[in-house]
């Protein structure tokens, strides 16, 4: 997207569609086939993305189904008051942002490292098989990840505790220790996404101009210097674009992963509750649509502002990297 929009902005506009209604109509007729080709997708987004948007009004009402979204009593900011006052909104924001930062920093680091090392591997079969195995976690559902986690970590039969008791230790009550979960969740996230994410960097390394490596060799560069002065700088644009995109989504979490790892275990909420799990739980176990909508709206608006801010900053620094 970044690239796509950037490029289009740089390119001269061929036609303006908005100047005169007449030319607009003519333009529609002339492009009817291409427009028709876009129609299914447009309809899709109208029906499933735009049409529910007015429903965000629920955040300001005491919603009931009889009166509907716009007939329900208006309560102003009541639904937000407690979320803010209790610090819940802050906790959710903090958790969401910190998890995302950890995912971004550690994720990119690992992905780059794996990509560089994969590039060093010479054996074709080793490369192929290890790649296949590393992608595997990306293919399974988060439901299965929840199963895996429970198998590893539960108190009575978990693999980790089985190992501990076999070596004479006391089993650990992992599902009651809130402090352990950021690490566990981050590990699972890395486990699931690193193999897949490294392909992008790997592809970028493959695309580095060979003459650079040759020049480095002629200069007598060591392997470390080759990484430091050739590979890493070449990965910088990729990294920045990925980073920007991750920053844009910093208010979103990996909902399925969190939900299937933690579920309704209130003992862990302090360190594991992110905006999306909270929004889901409010509906699913508290039948509370108004607070849920309020948190969702906050997420959307705050996320929107963050993207705009990130984009504005990037544009100041280097216009080419801006999203739009």
């Amino acid at each position, binding site marked *: 997207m970044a690239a796509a929009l950037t490029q289009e902005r740089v390119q001269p506009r061929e036609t303006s569609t908005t100047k005169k209604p007449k030319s607009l109509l003519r333009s529609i007729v002339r492009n009817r086939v291409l427009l028709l080709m876009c129609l299914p997708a447009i309809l899709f*987004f109208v029906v499933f993305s735009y049409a529910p*948007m007015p429903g965000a009004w629920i955040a300001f009402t005491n919603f009931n189904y009889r009166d509907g979204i716009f007939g329900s009593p208006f309560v102003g900011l009541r639904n937000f008051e407690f979320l803010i006052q209790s610090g819940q909104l802050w906790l959710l924001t903090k958790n969401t942002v910190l998890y995302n930062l950890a995912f971004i920093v550690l994720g990119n680091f690992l992905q780059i490292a794996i990509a560089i090392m994969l590039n060093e591997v010479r054996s074709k079969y080793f490369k192929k098989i290890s790649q296949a195995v590393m992608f595997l976690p990306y293919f399974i559902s988060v439901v299965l990840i929840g199963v895996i986690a429970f198998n590893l970590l539960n108190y009575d039969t978990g693999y980790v505790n089985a190992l501990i008791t076999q070596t004479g230790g006391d089993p650990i009550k992992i599902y009651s220790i809130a402090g352990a979960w950021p690490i566990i969740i981050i590990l699972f996230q890395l486990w699931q996404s690193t193999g897949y*994410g490294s392909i992008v960097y790997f592809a970028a390394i493959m695309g580095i*101009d060979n003459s650079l490596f040759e020049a480095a060799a002629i200069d007598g560069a060591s392997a470390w210097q080759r990484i430091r002065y050739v590979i890493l700088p070449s990965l910088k644009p990729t990294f920045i674009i990925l980073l920007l995109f991750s920053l844009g989504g910093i208010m979103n979490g990996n909902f399925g992963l969190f939900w299937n790892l933690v579920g309704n275990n209130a003992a862990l909420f302090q360190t594991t509750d992110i905006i999306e799990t909270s929004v889901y739980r409010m509906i699913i176990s508290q039948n509370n649509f108004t607070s849920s909508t309020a948190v969702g709206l906050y997420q959307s608006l705050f996320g929107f502002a963050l993207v705009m801010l990130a984009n504005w900053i990037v544009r100041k620094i280097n216009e080419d990297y801006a999203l739009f």
Partner: protein
Amino acid sequence: MSHVVAAKPPRKAEPPRTVKPPRKVRLDRSDYVLRGISYLTVATFATFCALPFILIISASFSSESAIMRDGFGLLPREFTFAAYEYIFRAPRQIIGSYVVTIVMTVAGTAIGLFVIAMTGYALQRKDFPFRNSISFFIYFTTLFSAGLAPTFIWVSRYLELRGSYLAVFLQLLMTPWLIILMKNFVRSVPYEIVESGKIDGAGDFRIFLRLVLPMMKPALATIGLFLALGYWNEWYLSSLYLGSTVEFKPLQYHLYNIINTANALRNSVAGSNVSITELPSNTLKMASAVVATGPIVLAYPFVQRYFVSGITVGAVKG
């Protein structure tokens, strides 16, 4: 997903270079050290990735009493097929779930892929004056969304789709990211092809169908795989929009229920006349997980080639 999306496509229609000419370079000590570290790390990480799968498969072939006594292990404890026998003794539920999921995955991937390709193509056509507005119309939905609750109310109360497989099927058809990704892929198809088609008098749709589509196999494979994964691994929309309204739940939601509620576990083997306390519930859960996950993992090696090359095409070029 966003990884690929960020891709800056090759501006010219140059085929992706996946094989580099060998470097005629003298290797010094640091190269060997790095290579050693690389083999070791990659092997370790790959093992780390595979380990949980082994754990689950082993558990599914273990006896329940051994699991209760010694916990899960890397090798089956007291090897037995008991759990699988339970599942296939009354296979109605699992077969029903398979059928639902396979039909949704195949139909959804085919339809979604076609619509996405069509849209991506139109939006990439430089002579299409509405491409910026439509692109933004689609992109905007990633910046701002109605949120879960309003969407739920809209889909269930106004579209009246709750309780229908359509609620799940339709919502998974496409995402903005996939359309944008497709748009980037289309860019690698030389514009001259479109022009040659025009000269031959072909219409826009015909050009797309006959000339452009056949050139996009890696892209179709990649995006198709994303779609298929989305359908196959879907449990979330099912939990909201299907619940217990349908007899056969999509596979992963069925698994989700089996894992999380003992009732569902027993129902899944209903007809086998057993009390829940006699069921090997731990190993049964694992066997269900294996059965629900197996096909997509088995299918992976066959699509891996396309998938990797597809991502490479879409990936960033320095």
